[in-house]
């Protein structure tokens, strides 16, 4: 049941009405039942897995809090982490590691003849595992008290707006909301509805139309003769993945807002950044802050000198890449971003003593050049992220840097005609968000401006929405 399907619209209206008229504890019970039904609508077999993870973490959380000795605290922490990481590793990475090992052995002339297991990937496993782990680690660090309300905790793990593709909420933010009675206000429903509408526009109009352009074979080894077409496919993918995931996150926040929950912001106009550090503060914020708090800082962060900092950055980004999917393309993408972050550290160190530009024109020009340069660096990263194999990615890069034909032919004008009805709207909204840093301020615009904006988004969705849209990209992670 995708967020952009009629099935979900019907499901959500029913849940919203039941929740709005529910009293006290029934609010959470209704949402928990709805969340498990939502999860089962994808694959009922894995509801047991999410329930297992929830139960183990719930009990371990209480035991860690109760335990007085360090060893028993560590024991329950280990039980929880082994369960969570074990499930994730088995279902998501088992075949990847065995295949990689097989390939390595093959290089040395050994053939095991082992073909891996036929495993289906449980939906949203990477997201709910990280959510559960943050809860346990926070309790272990004494930054969070465990909840005794199993329903509230189970809802934190399986809440249907974020179970499949995040945001990776923190218990300290979510559970207090789950424990309180939520009165549904007009304001929260209005804001939620706007986020849902805008998320739908991002996904069904922008991302899906751009997907048609990006899926022209460029990333699968069929590089078009006209290099400009290949370049446009890369740009299209850059905006497709952004609008796909940001659209999902907005819809998740919107549906949660209609149910009285405030979920964290996951994207803040990342493509307006001009350096990797800022990019990761604005792209998939819930993951990047998770990696920072539970991996980078425990590794030592930037506390132990330059070399250790650079090493920690690389390790964090490589694991961040692997989190996305069990494939070397994702590992490479993570490593590439690690390299960008390391380079920035070194660059900042090198230019730190230089005088800043004082002339406003030169300053603007330099900012524009930096932005353009960094945007293309991000696009190079997307080549590895999207490519069907490392070979396809490398041959695409070779074709791009080899030059080739740059012609405005029928294919290019076709692409431009396709994007004209919606890209200006998407860019205008992003610019506005960049300027105000608050997308929801749209909901307090004057009436006439709001009505015009909502109608525009609505009819963009109705007329330019793509039939039979694909699944959200991040639901596969």
């Amino acid at each position: 049941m995708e967020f952009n399907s009629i099935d979900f619209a019907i499901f959500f209206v029913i849940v919203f009405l039941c929740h709005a008229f529910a009293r006290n504890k029934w609010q959470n019970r209704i949402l928990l039942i709805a969340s498990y039904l939502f999860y089962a609508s994808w694959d009922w077999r894995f509801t047991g897995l999410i329930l297992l993870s929830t139960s183990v973490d719930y009990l371990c959380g209480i035991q860690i809090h109760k335990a007085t000795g360090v060893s028993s605290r560590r024991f329950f922490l280990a039980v929880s982490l082994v369960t969570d990481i074990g499930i994730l590793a088995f279902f998501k990475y088992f075949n990847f590691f065995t295949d990689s090992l097989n390939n390595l052995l093959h290089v040395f002339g050994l053939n095991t003849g082992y073909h891996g297991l036929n495993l289906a990937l449980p939906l949203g496993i990477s997201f709910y595992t990280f959510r559960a782990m943050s809860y346990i680690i926070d309790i272990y660090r004494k930054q969070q008290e465990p909840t005794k309300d199993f329903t509230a905790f189970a809802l934190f793990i399986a809440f249907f707006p974020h179970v499949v593709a995040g945001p990776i909420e923190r218990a300290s933010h979510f559970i207090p909301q789950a424990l309180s009675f939520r009165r549904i206000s007009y304001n929260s429903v209005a804001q939620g509805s706007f986020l849902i509408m805008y998320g739908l526009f991002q996904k069904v109009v922008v991302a899906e139309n751009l997907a048609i352009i990006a899926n022209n074979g460029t990333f699968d080894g069929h590089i078009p003769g006209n290099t400009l077409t290949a370049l446009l496919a890369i740009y299209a993918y850059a905006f497709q993945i952004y609008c796909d995931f940001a659209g999902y996150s907005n819809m998740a926040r919107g549906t949660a807002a209609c149910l009285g929950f405030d979920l964290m912001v996951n994207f803040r106009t990342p493509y307006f950044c001009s350096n990797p550090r800022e990019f990761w503060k604005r792209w998939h914020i819930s993951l990047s802050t998770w990696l920072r708090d539970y991996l980078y800082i425990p590794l030592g962060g930037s506390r132990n000198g330059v070399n250790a900092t650079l090493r920690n950055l690389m390790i964090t980004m490589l694991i961040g890449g692997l989190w996305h999917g069990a494939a070397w393309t994702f590992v490479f993408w993570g490593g590439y971003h690690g390299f960008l972050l390391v380079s920035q550290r070194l660059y900042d160190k090198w230019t730190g003593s230089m005088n800043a530009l004082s002339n406003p024109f030169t300053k603007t020009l330099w900012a524009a050049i930096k932005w353009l340069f960094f945007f293309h660096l991000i696009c190079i990263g997307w080549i590895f992220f999207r490519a069907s194999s490392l070979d396809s990615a490398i041959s695409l890069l070779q074709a791009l840097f080899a030059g080739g034909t740059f012609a405005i032919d029928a294919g290019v004008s076709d692409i431009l005609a396709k994007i004209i009805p919606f890209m200006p709207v998407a860019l205008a909204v992003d610019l506005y968000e960049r300027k105000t840093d608050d997308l929801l301020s749209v909901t307090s615009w004057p009436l006439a401006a709001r009505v015009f904006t909502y109608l525009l988004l609505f009819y963009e969705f109705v007329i330019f929405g793509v039939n039979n849209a694909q699944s959200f990209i991040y639901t596969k992670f």
Partner: protein
Amino acid sequence: MPSLSFIQSSKSPALPWILLFVAAIEMVMARQLPDRFSSHEVDGLIRDIQHNRYNPRVVLLGDSVGYQIFQPFREKWPNRFAALASNTGIEMAGQYFLIKRHLQRHEDPHAVIFLGLNPLGLNLDQKLTENYVQRCFTQWNEIAELTRAKKSLPFSTRIIIYKLFTSYKYRLHLQKKITGRTNADIYTGGGKRKASGKRKDYGIFRLIQASLDERRKTPISDEYFVRLLKLLKSRGIKLYYIPAPLPSSEHSTHILPPLNFLRDLAREYDNLYIMEELQMVLEDERFGDGTHPDKEGLVRIHEKLDQFLWDVRSKERPEYRNEKKTAEPESR
């Protein structure tokens, strides 16, 4: 004069205004778009039934092969034969709605001739169902009937959306009008369906829907075939079923109608006639795509079929011998 300062207000709720504007826009669209755009033959047929005042004595139904074979009758004798054959995508439910709409606005014909491949065994879950059924048959009584037959809330909701939002119904045409391009094929409505059948589906709602489908005693199209028969019988109209022509070598690979089922029906409903003797088997090369006859094939089909059609029209068939003729046939 009332104050217009509320349009500056950031507190006034936008929802009532949006509903008002959307209703106004959709009303304008509903008046303008159907006359300008049509996706396929069903769109055109529905408009014809709505606007044309003719009272032919024979109605021709069928799938795309029937559409092709009946095309000369549609062009040359529109007042003698109402050629309502369209596409297999509308299934029997669509055929039933077409004839029902026709009977509501025109005098009863004395016969309906259905020509096509197997019209049975379908459950409104084909690639073309959305574009040919849900998008086209949006009268409230049709929505109610389809809801009862399909028993799927999302299925019915989509029809209601098509009914309420004309701009959505004609979105592909609007895309083409605005940008010169569409993101899907107007004829099929996109039809980029997820692959089904290869991997087992474990989604709980889809399993429930599949279980409901399995518990259905007869396929929806069979049910509608019987309803069509009943409707025609109640008005004294005969139904002739002619199996579509087939290529000789692929005779066995084509989906043939379950003739035993039809014969049983013919015993139960005395207005059903199965014209197996009129089915033609032609050489393979007479079928360009394996299903639709080419020009020469059509000539041979018409040589065999036309006399039958005119005979039905003028009640020169044995079935009419015992009937009191109500009107003299028009001259050919």
